[in-house]
């Protein structure tokens, strides 16, 4: 069986950044597997600007941002396969992929980095009544049709959901001469970034109706209109508030779901809130040597943070491979020297192949501290820390459950308040972060859990 030190599943922003970081950390044998016919992932269709301010200190469009990383991958001569779909990943890191040139191939990976990204929540998940006429697209599909394939998807549009892609598409369609009549959002707040409301809706006078949803879809062959109604606090439509909008296009921007079928296949359990794997502070999943980063781990707002997170996964996977290689060499040296080994070699190799080798985080002596999301914090990534192998600082990312004003974000080690930071506004659409330091944790070596919560005063 072919072996590669690090196999990266996905050649989008996360996969590219992880590859470059792993190479810089000294791993030469890396392979990126990408199902599309180009690298760069979703950035290729995100032609708007606003990418890269954190990473490159300048404002780039999606394709330009991707090009920077693709250039690094090519400069470092990191191998990649395009038009290649990964069919299966096992718990012990065997990766099976398919493409036209090689057919079906299974390779053994020293470490795997999951960077498959996410996909859009479809209409079927919404239970919207009506026929299935043409003209209903997920916002990202419409984005691809317009920006890559060159079709104007419609002339009069209504957008359901105020996620960023929906907002971006409202502007995009307007610029291309379509009339965007309204953006309806079922929640009482927008799911998108504030800047996108300003520059995509306000700039063009497109109304945003909060606490509104589509209650009926009209038309049989082609969409002819939708009915929008206000919803109550339980998200049930309020009778008498229905309004009809004629339109030929309905775009859905109603959420993104990490694409974790392969992770599930590898026996990795998923977090119920993020729909991504649970990971430790090194972004390692439950399966030893399998790391996750980017939108497959949790859906991000900013590609800059995806790149940061993925670089960390790349570095950690590199460290893991180097540690394993060193252990192997040491073991072989001892065995050669004494000409006897505690366990017959075949047996230990078989145990390893079955994945029976204890995951690093279950080794005795390693202190595992869960991170608890509480009081308005919906989740944290990572979900737990291992204080022994911890880096000097660990960035914990999270989202809040509702729109909050003038609240603190507080960090507790058990019942001890460690830090708090006042935030004027917190919103579910905007990812937040806190940084935990090794130094501060060392002062509380007996910490059993770390809680991140919002507090009013």
């Amino acid at each position, binding site marked *: 069986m072919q072996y590669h030190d690090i196999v990266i599943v996905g050649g989008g922003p996360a996969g590219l950044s992880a590859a470059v970081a792993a190479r810089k950390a000294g791993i030469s044998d890396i392979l990126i597997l990408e199902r599309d016919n180009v690298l760069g992932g979703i950035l290729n269709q995100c032609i708007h*600007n606003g990418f890269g301010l954190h990473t490159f200190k300048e*404002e780039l469009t999606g394709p330009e941002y991707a090009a920077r990383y693709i250039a690094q991958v090519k400069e470092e001569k990191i191998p990649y396969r395009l038009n290649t779909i990964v069919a299966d990943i096992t718990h012990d890191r065997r990766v099976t992929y398919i493409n036209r040139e090689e057919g079906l191939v299974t390779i053994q990976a020293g470490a795997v980095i999951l960077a498959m990204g996410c996909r859009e929540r479809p209409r079927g998940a919404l239970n919207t009544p009506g026929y299935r006429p043409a003209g209903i697209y997920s916002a990202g599909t419409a984005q691809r049709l317009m920006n890559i*394939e*060159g079709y104007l998807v419609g002339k009069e549009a209504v957008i359901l959901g105020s996620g960023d892609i929906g907002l971006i598409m409202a502007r995009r369609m307007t610029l*291309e001469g379509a009339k965007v009549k309204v953006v309806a959002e079922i929640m009482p707040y927008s799911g998108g*970034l504030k*800047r996108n409301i300003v520059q995509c809706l306000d*700039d063009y006078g497109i109304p945003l109706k909060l606490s509104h949803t589509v209650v009926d879809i009209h038309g049989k062959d082609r969409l002819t209109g939708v009915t929008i109604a206000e919803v109550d606090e339980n998200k049930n439509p309020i009778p008498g508030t229905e309004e009809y909008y004629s339109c030929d296009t309905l775009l859905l921007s109603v959420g993104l779901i990490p694409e974790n079928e392969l992770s599930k296949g590898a026996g990795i359990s998923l977090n119920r809130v993020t729909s991504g794997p649970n990971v430790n502070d090194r972004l390692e999943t439950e399966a030893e040597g399998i790391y996750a980063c980017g939108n497959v781990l949790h859906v991000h707002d900013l590609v800059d943070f995806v790149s940061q997170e993925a670089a960390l996964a790349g570095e950690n996977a590199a460290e893991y491979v180097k540690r394993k290689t060193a252990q192997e060499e040491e073991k072989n040296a001892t065995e050669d020297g004494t000409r006897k080994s505690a366990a017959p070699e075949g047996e230990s190799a078989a145990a390893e192949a079955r994945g029976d080798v204890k995951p690093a985080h279950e080794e005795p002596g390693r202190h595992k501290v869960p991170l608890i999301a509480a009081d308005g914090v919906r989740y944290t990534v990572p979900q737990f820390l291992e204080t022994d192998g911890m880096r000097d600082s660990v960035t914990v990312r999270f989202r809040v459950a509702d729109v909050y004003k003038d609240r603190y974000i507080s960090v507790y080690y058990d019942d001890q308040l460690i830090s708090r930071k006042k935030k004027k506004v917190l919103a579910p659409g905007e990812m937040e972060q806190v940084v935990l330091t090794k130094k501060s944790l060392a002062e509380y070596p007996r910490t059993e859990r770390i809680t991140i919560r919002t507090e009013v005063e």
Partner: protein
Amino acid sequence: MEVKELICINCPMGCPLTVTIDGESLSVTGNTCPRGEDYAKKEVLSPTRIVTSSVRVSGGSIARVSVKTKTDIPKGKIFDVMKEIRAAHVDAPVQMGDVVIADCAGTGVDVIATKSVDRA
């Protein structure tokens, strides 16, 4: 004295800005970086935007090449710029950074390609 509340659009942080206009002088609070102050002043005096779109490509591996105005242009000129972008057309290959439309709609700003498109 006039006070205006803005949301900075320079980056996805979306800082809430407060601009106080007192005759000739402007003061900005709420920004977390110098870009915020620049944006607020500009937004009050003469708002500008970068326009991104795509242009038809002939003979390319894909049908459209993504483009942007090289720098921001006056907000009032967005649709004039779009009119030229929609009428434009290039032949593959296109390199990222190539000028697709020089001095678009009299703004003095070029429209440049933001991706490379190879020949099909």
